[in-house]
């Protein structure tokens, strides 16, 4: 045993005991830090609840719930104040109803095509085309609705107002179509192969199998998709406030100007509302109504999705036979039957006719799937046609101006880039830390499960709600730090919005690391954190970064929460990296687009189009970057795998 070759791990004294104690301390500190990160989304939910309830209490001290529910007018800005919430909800609901009416048939047929018919290559193009629709900043849809769709509709409906629920609803419908299609597609794909084969083996054509077997089984999942999409339509802010108008009007007529809950919030946010004023309380009460509506729909939707998935998993686990009198009787009965069944069956429907319906159905689903690509093309061409002529160097380097020829987006561009960096710097560490805690430390119990659903719901809360939270919390309570309605407050709002997304995608990335890698790490004596730091994180890294980039591209498309937290129309300086500048006023590309669309002159609309192009270019760059990164890592992984003997 004295052979030096064997002395490698001869005695434990080679390992420093003090090091172990230090290691233990470090483990504890890291765990506590991660737990705090995981607590932040919970804190945000509590803050939303707290702030909104607090403000609503003041509101209901002056206005009785009875008045709130029964008044037929909504005039908080006038001397004779009336607070009939149904005036606003009627507009919110009619826009959402029109949107759902558009999105359900298109989304469902597209889901059927993508899940059941599309060849791989076609699917690879059409699915992203369709899903891009829900990634387009909603301010762009607002532009589209008011400058393209409404004028077009007016040609067919002469008495259509310049602002109306119809075009807002139609365009919102396009925005939520991908939500319907992608969740329905999952539900359809989850239908077990055995049941499909059951249908085919009874001589069903593909269409018959889809309509008779697959869709009925996928139905609960489809209902969930519709629920979640409707919730998104209810909370949609920019389209409603740009295209549907700001006229509180208790009506279900889609042709006249109305005001939705979200449009009211934007309208009030545009002015400077003093804190603790009655209008301020009203703002939050209305926001709370919207929050309750969408939050309950989201819970319902996510619960349905989960229940459906579980149902699919347990679909055919049959129980054991029990002997009973009736079963014994029926087996005796078999013997006495004269086989076979009456063989003179007549089947009337000619197969050729059934197959003609099949081809028709296929073309129908294909055409609706193309709607996504077509809308994209129309949008892009109209924006390009309007925007290209004004897009030049001086447009990028000038400040905004009253004069359309001199106006540029310098401050807005810098503001957007600043927000991008700040949001990444805040949301990334917190989000990844929280995800690590939830996924690697917290036991997988019911509480963790509920937290997971809750995070999905937080991600679906309308962003305007976060804007109001930011207004109350970051811009007022934390004013000494943030400087009020500032770049910093805006970055905190955007971080709250993307945090749930970052956590969800990071959890997915961590979950995709095979369990064997964890065991290998623990097997060589790594502590929990060492395993995470050295093995799990590096392996999950590409997916984490991809998720983060996608979350950021969502963040820079946001408009409504920035208006709520106080983005201004005109700024004549660019912020530097100093606390003073971060505490200063801000403007961004999206809010700049909003202010320009609101101008009556056509020249400003062209400026808006050019700004949309710049915004689009940034979002596109981020997405390309995400895809390249993913492919790069995938290739690297592939090479590693190939090197194996």
């Amino acid at each position, binding site marked *: 045993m004295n052979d030096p070759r064997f002395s490698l791990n001869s005695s434990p004294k080679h390992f420093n005991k003090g090091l172990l104690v230090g290691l233990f301390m470090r483990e504890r500190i890291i765990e506590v830090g991660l737990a705090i990160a995981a607590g932040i989304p919970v804190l945000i939910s509590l803050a939303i609840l707290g702030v909104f309830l607090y403000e609503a209490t003041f509101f209901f001290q002056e206005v009785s719930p009875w008045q709130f529910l029964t008044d037929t007018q909504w005039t908080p800005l006038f001397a004779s104040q009336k607070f009939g919430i149904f005036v606003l909800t009627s507009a919110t609901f009619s826009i959402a109803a029109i949107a759902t009416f558009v999105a359900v048939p298109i989304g469902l047929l597209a889901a059927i095509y993508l899940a059941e018919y599309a060849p791989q290559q076609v699917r690879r193009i059409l699915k992203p085309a369709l899903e891009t629709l829900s990634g387009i900043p909603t301010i762009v849809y607002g532009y589209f609705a008011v400058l393209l769709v409404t004028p077009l509709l007016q040609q067919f409906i002469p008495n259509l107002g310049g602002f109306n629920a119809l075009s807002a609803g139609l365009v919102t419908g396009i925005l939520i179509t991908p939500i319907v299609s992608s969740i329905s597609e999952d539900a359809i794909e989850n239908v*077990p192969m*055995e*049941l*499909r*084969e*059951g*249908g*085919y*083996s*009874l*001589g*069903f*054509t593909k269409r*018959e199998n889809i309509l*008779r*077997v697959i869709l*009925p*089984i996928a139905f609960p999942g489809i209902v969930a998709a519709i629920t979640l999409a409707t919730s998104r339509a209810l909370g949609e802010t920019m389209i409603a406030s740009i295209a549907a108008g700001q006229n509180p009007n208790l009506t279900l007529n889609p042709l006249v100007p109305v005001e939705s809950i979200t449009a009211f919030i934007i309208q009030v946010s545009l002015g400077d509302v003093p804190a603790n004023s009655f209008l301020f309380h009203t703002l939050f009460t209305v926001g709370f109504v919207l929050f309750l509506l969408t939050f309950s729909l989201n819970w319902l939707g996510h619960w349905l999705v989960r229940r459906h998935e579980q149902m699919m998993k347990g*679909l*055919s686990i*049959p*129980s*054991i*036979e*029990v*002997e*009973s009198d*009736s*079963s014994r*009787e*029926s*087996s005796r*009965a*078999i*013997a006495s*039957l004269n*086989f*076979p*069944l*009456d*063989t003179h*069956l*007549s*089947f*009337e*429907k000619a*197969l050729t006719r*059934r*197959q003609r319906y099949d081809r028709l159905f296929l073309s129908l689903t294909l055409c609706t799937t193309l709607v996504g690509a077509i809308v994209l093309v129309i949008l892009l061409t109209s924006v390009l046609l309007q925007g290209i002529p004004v897009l030049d160097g001086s447009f990028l380097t000038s400040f905004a101006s009253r004069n359309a020829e001199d106006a540029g987006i310098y401050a807005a561009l810098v503001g957007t880039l600043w927000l991008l960096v700040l949001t990444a710097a805040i949301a990334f560490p917190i989000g990844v830390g929280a995800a690590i805690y939830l996924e690697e430390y917290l036991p997988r119990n019911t509480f963790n499960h509920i937290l997971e659903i809750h995070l999905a719901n937080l991600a679906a809360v309308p962003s305007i709600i976060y804007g109001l939270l930011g207004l109350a919390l970051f811009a007022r309570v934390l004013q000494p730090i943030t400087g009020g309605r500032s770049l910093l407050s805006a970055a905190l709002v955007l971080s709250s919005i993307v945090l749930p997304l970052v956590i969800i995608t990071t959890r997915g990335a961590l979950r995709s690391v095979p369990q064997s890698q964890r065991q290998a790490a623990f097997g060589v004596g790594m502590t929990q954190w060492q395993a995470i730091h050295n093995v799990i994180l590096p392996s999950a890294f590409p997916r984490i970064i991809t998720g983060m980039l996608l979350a950021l591209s969502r963040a820079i498309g946001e408009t409504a929460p920035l208006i709520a937290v106080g983005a201004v129309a005109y700024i004549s300086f660019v912020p530097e990296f100093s606390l003073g500048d971060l505490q200063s006023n801000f403007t961004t590309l999206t809010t700049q687009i909003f202010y320009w669309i609101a101008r009556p002159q056509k020249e400003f609309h062209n400026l808006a189009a050019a700004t949309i192009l710049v915004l689009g270019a940034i979002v596109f760059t981020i997405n390309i970057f995400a895809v390249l990164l993913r492919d790069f890592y995938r290739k690297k992984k592939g090479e590693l795998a190939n090197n194996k003997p």
Partner: protein
Amino acid sequence: MNNQQAITMNNPVFTSKSEQESSEILPEVILQAEDVSVSYHGIPALQNISLEIYKNQITSFIGPSGCGKSTFLRCFNRLNDLIPETRMTGKIRFFGQSIRRMNPVEIRRRIGMVFQRPNPFPKSIYDNIAVGLRVNGYRGNLDDRVETSLRHVGLWNEVKNKLKKNALDLSGGQQQRLCIARTIALNPEVILMDEPTAALDPISAGRINDLLMTMRQYYTIILITHNLKQAALVTDRVAFFNVEINSRGDRVGKLIEYAPTLDIFVNPTQQTTWDYVVPGSRYSS
């Protein structure tokens, strides 16, 4: 007197195979496979299978798992067409006509299938049977047809008072009989069964065996089974498949021996068949 007994009586147990074939009066051929090979993703799973399926007999496919029995069975109703990257070569004739020229939808109505795991639709018991009839445009009385189908699988008494209940509430064995009922309701000319009792408890399995015994002289059935007792009990002919490693190292399914049931169990001509079916060898149970 059925075929099986006829064979047994006319042939002494230890005659050679060729003698047997010559003296056997074979019934009409319904399905005929000629040199069938199947590959998944370009990797062969099954090679050069030729055999004939006779009318009103139960033919069983036996062999170790992974030898391609299911793959072969699913060629007969072209169910493999639905799996991407699956290629079949060779020819299958149905009443002399190549099935490749026929409409797969029509083939599947005429050649029904029952699967290993019961797969009733999550609909009512009644609708499970009615949906196939409706889609295929059945002209008679639906209620009557549903009742007779259920009676023929011995399920009627158990379910007649709960026809509107969800089929998933039935026990596994009942579900499987419902699936058989749903198949025979369409009056198929052949029924393919892929280990129909493998996922069931012994009582349920026994009941399905009873049912197969009753059906055997009236239906043409191809039955995959791992249960040799079942094969010996209810079938007329047995095809034994096995896995062979080809020159490229792929595990490929081959047909080793195809003969009347008694010959396979008592007088197999191939050593591998012998190893598989003879009691005391590692497969038998």
